[in-house]
């Protein structure tokens, strides 16, 4: 019944099957909206955040999904600025993922602030020294850019492009997309960085505080690097996952391997930089503020294992796998390494946000634990469900993987060529 909307040359499951898939996510989304509504109407007392744990699940999720969504800007950058044409196969998907991640993050942020009605104050009275100002400006601008980048993909929908205005606009906009890719790269660069700076500048928390360059602490650069490193990994993983879920070949394996190689390369650089940064922090920054670094890891359960996990298990290991050509050729290794890299960045964001807040700064402080309330979790799940829904609809009705159509014909042509063609022409 919605066949007219599905891109030509690709096959999608039947409408009832699609609805069956959508339904639980829609239900989850509705529940999450209810939770978010509670937080907005009744106030943030609905959460388990408190004065010490001023940030909770949402900030962690925001930082993580924005890092994962970095694939959008980075792929755009590689494709349109560095002209890595192979990435054309995933750019649409990357844009949708980026859009989903950023819009989800912005929505969560709006629930997270105590007075969402005053959100525009940041623009009106900006304190340019605040990392959060930088984050707010970049995140909104970049979301607008992503929206504009998402627009051509939507307008290419089979039904929409029948409208001449849409078709022509999409065509003209696509010609200028490199400008947007450039702006997006610029914004993302500062945005990812300022998210890192968010915690890196906290002089009051020597666990997070880092020295740096000019106004930016080292975490500024580490966040950019790590986001650029895992962005491709996340696209690799999602492409593989969607391919598995839909049972369709979406891109050529070479594309995934290219993504893996880029990811591995950057991850390697990141791990190196992170190691140097950690050593400087342990030996100079932290003791300089009166906080011996080993004390942080004396508070269980976050012992030194978390540092080891972050740098070695979820950093070095995937980097090495992705940089080994032989392993990259095996899908299992490739995908596992990509997942490890994504988990690594999530762990890094967890450490920077939640562990920072859990650790005491005063000698008579307690070490605090925090567990999100159901309203908080629900709101987070709404973001996830929102992402799944937007992506599902996009995947069904928009052409996210242009190569998909080729696979429809390729294998068949190879099989049937001799069987059917021969007798016809030559006889």
């Amino acid at each position, binding site marked *: 019944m919605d066949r007219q909307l599905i891109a030509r040359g690709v*096959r999608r499951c039947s409408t009832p099957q699609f609805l069956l898939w959508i339904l639980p996510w829609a239900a989850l989304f509705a529940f999450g909206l209810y939770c978010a509504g509670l937080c907005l109407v009744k106030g943030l007392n609905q959460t388990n955040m408190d004065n010490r744990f001023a940030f909770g699940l949402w900030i962690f999720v925001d930082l993580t999904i924005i890092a994962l969504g970095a694939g959008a800007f980075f792929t755009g950058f590689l494709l349109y600025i560095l002209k890595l044409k192979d990435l054309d196969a995933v750019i649409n998907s990357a844009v949708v993922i980026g859009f989903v991640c950023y819009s989800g993050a912005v929505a969560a942020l709006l629930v997270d602030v105590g007075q969402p009605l005053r959100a525009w104050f940041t623009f009106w009275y900006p304190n340019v020294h605040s990392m959060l100002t930088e984050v707010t400006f970049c995140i909104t601008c970049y979301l607008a850019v992503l929206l504009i980048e998402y627009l051509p993909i939507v307008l290419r929908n089979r039904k929409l492009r029948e409208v001449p205005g849409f*078709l022509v606009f999409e065509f*003209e906009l696509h010609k200028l997309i490199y400008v947007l890719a450039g702006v997006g790269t610029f914004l993302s660069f500062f945005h990812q960085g300022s998210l890192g700076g968010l915690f890196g500048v906290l002089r009051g928390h020597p666990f997070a505080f880092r020295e740096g360059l000019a106004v930016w602490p080292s975490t500024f650069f580490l966040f950019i690097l790590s986001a650029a490193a895992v962005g491709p990994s996340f696209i690799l993983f999602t492409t593989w996952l969607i391919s598995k879920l839909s049972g369709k070949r979406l891109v050529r394996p070479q594309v995934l391997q290219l993504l893996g190689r880029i990811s591995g390369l950057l991850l390697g650089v990141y791990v190196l930089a992170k190691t140097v940064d950690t050593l400087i922090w342990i030996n100079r920054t932290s003791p300089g503020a009166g906080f011996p670094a080993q004390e942080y890891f004396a508070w269980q359960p976050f012992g030194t294992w978390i540092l080891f996990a972050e740098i070695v298990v979820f950093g070095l290991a995937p980097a090495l796998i992705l940089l080994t050509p032989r392993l990259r050729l095996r899908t299992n290794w490739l995908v596992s390494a990509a997942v490890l890299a994504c988990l690594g960045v999530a762990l890094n964001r967890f450490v920077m946000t939640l562990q920072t807040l859990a650790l005491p700064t005063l000698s008579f402080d307690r070490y605090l634990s925090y567990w999100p309330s159901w309203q908080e979790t629900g709101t987070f799940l709404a973001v996830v469900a929102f992402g799944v829904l937007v992506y599902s609809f996009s995947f069904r009705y928009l052409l996210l993987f242009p190569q998909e159509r080729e696979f429809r*014909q390729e294998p068949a042509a190879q099989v049937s060529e001799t069987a059917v*063609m021969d007798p*016809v022409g030559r006889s």
Partner: protein
Amino acid sequence: MFPWNYGFHWSTGNVLFLGAFYTVLVVVATTVASAILRARRAVAAQQTDAIRWRSDFHDLPPRDRVCRHVLTGEFQVRECPNAFDCRQCETHARLVALHPPEAPPESGEELLGMSFPLDRFYHRGHTWARLGPDGAVTIGLDELGRRVLGVPDAVDLPAPGTRLRVNGPAWHIHKRNRDVRVLSPADGEVVEATGGIGGDGYLRVKPVGRGFDFRNLLAPCEVKPWLLREVERLQGALSAEGVPTLADGGVLLPDLSTAYPQADWDAACDAMFLQA
């Protein structure tokens, strides 16, 4: 945000930060605005059809976009950079100059059990154009195209006087809830819409401006290799999801539209009529 807002200082930080912000705003706004302006201009200049074809062409799988000189074996690999409009193509002109078209093969009219008269030029979207004695051109659907579509449910023909452009839509055929747009092989103005009844052409078109230019159409000598490849593509489109037999004894069915499930047949239409 503005100098008159509370807390604004003319400090370096403020100027740099807000300067960057406004630059971004201006760049993004300019980009979108210029896209809108250009789109309006294009619509006004009636370039919609050309753009639609370009967009369609861009969306075709790379193997469908190959240069006609690959079909004849002159190139190993080449993608058409001109969206199948060879009139402006320098490479094409050079190649034609190098190898002037051979005489048409004798058996040209019967190919793979289908009739392909060589008194006309074929378009890669399965139309043909035949110059009549009166200087008008008759445009029609070739046999392969006819077999794919079978007997149309309805035909949507342009009114006489309509301007046709190469690779623009010539007419629409409705079949199985589907609207197939047929690409025009030639520039011109519609004189008469005969509608394919009687099998000889759908439209009669008179030249506009400098007259007809058939350089974009396939020369008789190219028809056979092209057709072989087309059948192969058709085959691929039809049996992608595992419906194995294309034809009875290797010959194309006279009416494919009734023999295949909708999806397969849709794919076949897409492949044959170069629809993305």
